[in-house]
């Protein structure tokens, strides 16, 4: 692809991303010009900008049912799928900015928020990219911003360690992924776009037959290429066996960043993975595509079991949430497995999108509460949450809501999310996987209820004063708690949106 036919109107497709970049610069400038305004104000400013971008995104939103072409030299596709994930990332980014404003981060100035916005922007591009070069650039841009954010509390050894760990593991994973991409590039004879790749690796196409006759190892190379690229995706989504970084990083990173990592970054991993595996290797068309279809199920099962079983033994709440978010990735991978096997792919993909969205709301609210409480208490032990129902009844209630929603208890929104994923598995005849999923939900009841038990049953310090949390966090927690309940009642429009997004992705 050459850029000779560049049409400036195509920039409209990335208008929200451009606006995000501009806003990142504005935040940096505001910090400089005013000589370091309060980080609260900066957080608010960041969130306002993100909301503005959301409005831009809504205006440029592609219509349902309309086929969206790839733009900018076939690097980007701004379809409804991109739109939905962009919304998820931006909402997560705005919430993170708000709660980070309340969070004591050493020397948090404009650069923290600028990095946050850039990470969000890169994730949006990840969801939109349909070319391996764009894929790699976007993934790296997001990762590098996140490495810096995770290690942002430079004075705290744990945070610095988290940043370093995340960087080392992340760099290895992305190198492996890059190696995989280069194999694909070589095996396909120099293709970078997903659609051309998919054509090359189809058994029946004349070009493939020619290629294979010339280079008999083409499929082997492509298979290894796909496997290595999957390593990168599994790292991003914290799927077993590439999950090991997440507990350490979540524990050490500033809590709002942990919340962002566990939701937006994971969602971005899924967005980019689904796009890549389906566009470049449509299931059933080549032996190469069988690799991802077959490997999804064992990965999903391992991820669920490992995440849930290790979460049971945790005493630090951030580590517990880290393992729980690994387990949650397992449920999403269950949807991805169904996507590979199912006849009704739109339904399976929509179930993943819906799940990611619902999970984002409850998990980020949970991290917001944990962040506020642990700063106040100076401890992250679950046992130190004892008696919270007496000290801060509303906060305790909101935390119960988040925990129950993560469990998948009705009538909270997490239940509807789980339901759709489980149904997708059922529709794909993955009965065994579904039963494994149900067993895992049962295991998870134990540790999610453990937090509830600490807050309501244990006595704790009777005379302790109420836990002080910032007004931003209060708003975030309040609004998301209400959303946990209300979204169940009005789930249908959101499900329909997810379904439309999945259809536009498949068309």
């Amino acid at each position, binding site marked *: 692809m050459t850029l000779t036919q560049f049409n400036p109107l195509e920039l409209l497709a990335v208008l929200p991303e451009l606006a995000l970049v501009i806003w990142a610069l504005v935040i940096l400038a505001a910090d400089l010009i005013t000589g370091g305004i309060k980080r609260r104000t900066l957080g608010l400013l960041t969130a306002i900008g993100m909301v503005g971008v959301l409005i831009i995104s809504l205006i440029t939103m592609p219509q349902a049912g309309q086929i969206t072409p790839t733009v900018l030299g076939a690097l980007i596709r701004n379809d409804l799928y991109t739109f939905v994930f962009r919304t998820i990332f931006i909402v997560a980014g705005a919430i993170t900015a708000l709660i980070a404003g309340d969070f004591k981060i050493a020397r948090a100035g404009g650069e923290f928020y600028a990095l946050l916005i850039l990470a969000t922007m890169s994730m949006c591009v990840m969801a939109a990219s349909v070319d391996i070069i764009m894929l790699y650039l976007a993934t790296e841009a997001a990762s590098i911003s996140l490495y810096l954010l995770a290690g942002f509390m430079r004075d705290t050894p744990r945070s610095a360690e988290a940043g370093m760990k995340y960087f080392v593991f992340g760099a290895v994973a992305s190198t492996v992924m890059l190696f995989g991409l280069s194999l694909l590039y070589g095996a396909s004879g120099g293709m970078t776009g997903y659609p051309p790749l998919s054509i090359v690796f189809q058994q029946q196409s004349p070009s493939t037959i020619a290629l294979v006759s010339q280079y008999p190892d083409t499929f082997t190379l492509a298979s290894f290429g796909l496997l290595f690229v999957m390593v990168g995706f599994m790292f991003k989504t914290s799927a077993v066996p590439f999950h090991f970084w997440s507990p350490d990083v979540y524990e050490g990173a500033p809590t709002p960043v942990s919340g962002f990592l566990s939701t937006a970054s994971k969602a971005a991993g899924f967005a980019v993975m689904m796009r890549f595996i389906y566009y470049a290797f449509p299931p059933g068309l080549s032996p190469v595509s069988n690799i991802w279809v077959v490997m999804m199920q064992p990965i999903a099962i391992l991820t669920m079991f490992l995440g849930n079983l290790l979460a049971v033994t945790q005493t630090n709440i951030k580590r517990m949430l880290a393992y729980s978010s690994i387990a949650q990735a397992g449920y999403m991978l269950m949807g991805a497995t169904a996507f590979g096997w199912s006849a009704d792919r739109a339904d399976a993909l929509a179930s993943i999108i819906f799940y990611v969205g619902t999970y984002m709301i409850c998990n980020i609210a949970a991290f917001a509460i944990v962040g506020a409480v642990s700063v106040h208490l100076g401890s992250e032990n679950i046992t130190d949450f004892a008696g919270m*129902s*007496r000290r801060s*009844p*509303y906060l*305790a*209630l909101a935390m*119960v809501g988040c925990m*129950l929603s993560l469990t998948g*208890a*009705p*009538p909270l929104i997490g*239940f*509807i999310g789980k*339901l759709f994923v489980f*149904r997708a598995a*059922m529709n794909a005849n993955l009965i065994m996987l579904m039963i494994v999923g*149900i067993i895992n939900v*049962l295991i998870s*009841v134990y540790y999610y*209820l453990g937090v*509830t*038990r600490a807050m*309501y*049953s244990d006595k704790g310090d009777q005379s302790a004063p109420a836990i002080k949390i910032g007004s931003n966090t209060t708003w975030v927690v309040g609004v998301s708690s209400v959303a946990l309940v209300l979204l169940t009642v009005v*789930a*249908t429009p959101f*499900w*329909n949106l997810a*379904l439309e997004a999945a259809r536009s992705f498949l068309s």
Partner: protein
Amino acid sequence: MIFPILSLIMLAPVIGAVIILFIPKDRNDAIKTVAAASAMVSMLLSLLVVFAYNRDQGGFQFAEKASWIPSLGVSYYVAVDGFSAPLLLLNGIVLFCAVLVTWNLTDRAREFFAFLLMLAAGVFGAFMSLDLFLFLIFYELVLFPVYVLVAGWGSGPREYAAMKLTIYLFLGSLASILGLLVIYYASGRSFSFDDMQRGVAALKDTVALQRTWFLPVFIGFGVLASIWPLHNWSPDGYASAPTAVSMLHGGVLKATGAYAALRFGVQIMPEGAKYWLPVVAFLCLANVIYAGSVAFRQKDLKYIIGFASVAHLGLVLLGICALNVYGLNGAGIELFAGGVMTGLMFSLVGIIYERSHERDFSKLNGLVKVMPLAAVGFVIGSLTAMGMPGFSGFPAEMQIFMGLWSASQTNSLMFAGQLNWWLAVIAIVGVLTILITATWTLRIGRQMFFTDAITPDWQQLPPLTGIEKVAIILPCIVCIGVGILPNSVMNIIEIGVQAMVKSIGG
């Protein structure tokens, strides 16, 4: 648009809970007033439903139906028939009394009442939903408030009890959900009760399917109705739970289990029911005998009432096992009358324990001098429990055993072919178990209330407050009223039961 009375019954406690959450936590009186008011609204509205139910028309009435998640075949579909309408009233009465009994609570009263009202809303919803999905949402909605209430406000080994209770009920509901999901997929992917019933009946291999999946569904719901040998959570849970929760759980929530087993087990899979229920009847008989005997041996008051409620649900399930008009009638009245009775007994035990901090009944004595009304309530509760004529337990237990007997005499029900005579044996043994109940209730009543001697400690106990008196008198009126005029509830239950028996072809 008709007046959405059923939704209002269910929403009144929810609205109450939300309002309570916004009341400052030191305004205890305001919190309790709101709780009592919303409970009263629900109670009066459900009383209205029982009266306004058109007995000539029968069937499901006050229906409200709206599409909810069409892609899953889920709708908001609530309605009541003759069987479920009195159960709404039961929940209203017990909830109201439970709020009154807990009037003295000061520890985190706001959260307590909010959770309690959510629990009650879930039970209301479960009794009225005719969409299986909606039902399951309400059913599960009940479990988590119970956990928090028992673990947060209970006594004794409350965390252990709360976790045990939650795990038992959660596993039970999973078994039911699994079975019902299979039925849902087989019968045309609609969660609506009517559609499922029709869909199952129209299937080609319907008998085999029903016989395979009836048992998990029935036993799964049966766990909540504390069917032997899966009753174990119940005495432990009730012994640790705060009084109001024991009342609601023992009196009403267990009824939800039996009701669900009947509505979504027996009614959707009648062939499975005919095949399995004679076998299940033995478990239910074991409930009555075993729980009654344990209640006889126990010294801890809360455990005794806990086991009594296990026995009471055993009778209900026996009535369901008879699968005829008498048996189901008896089961319906027993659910209503026994639920009120269990609530009454738990509230009395709670009141006495709160004053004396003594749960070992053998150490209590002469209480009639301090709280005469409690003694009266206990006697009425005991007489109801043992099925004395003139009390609401009598028409219930008599019809249950009549139902079992007549089921053994007819060949209209298949009962796996040749098991009919078993039911006669069960009926005879079952009647004898009344003796067990009579023995322990009389023994305890005499020891606690009617001894001449009274320990000085107990003489100091404060008398009953006016609010507590209301909470005792109200269920007593129901027990006697239904006993004297059994037709007051029987004529509505019978309408529901006859339609059920007709639909299952009994």
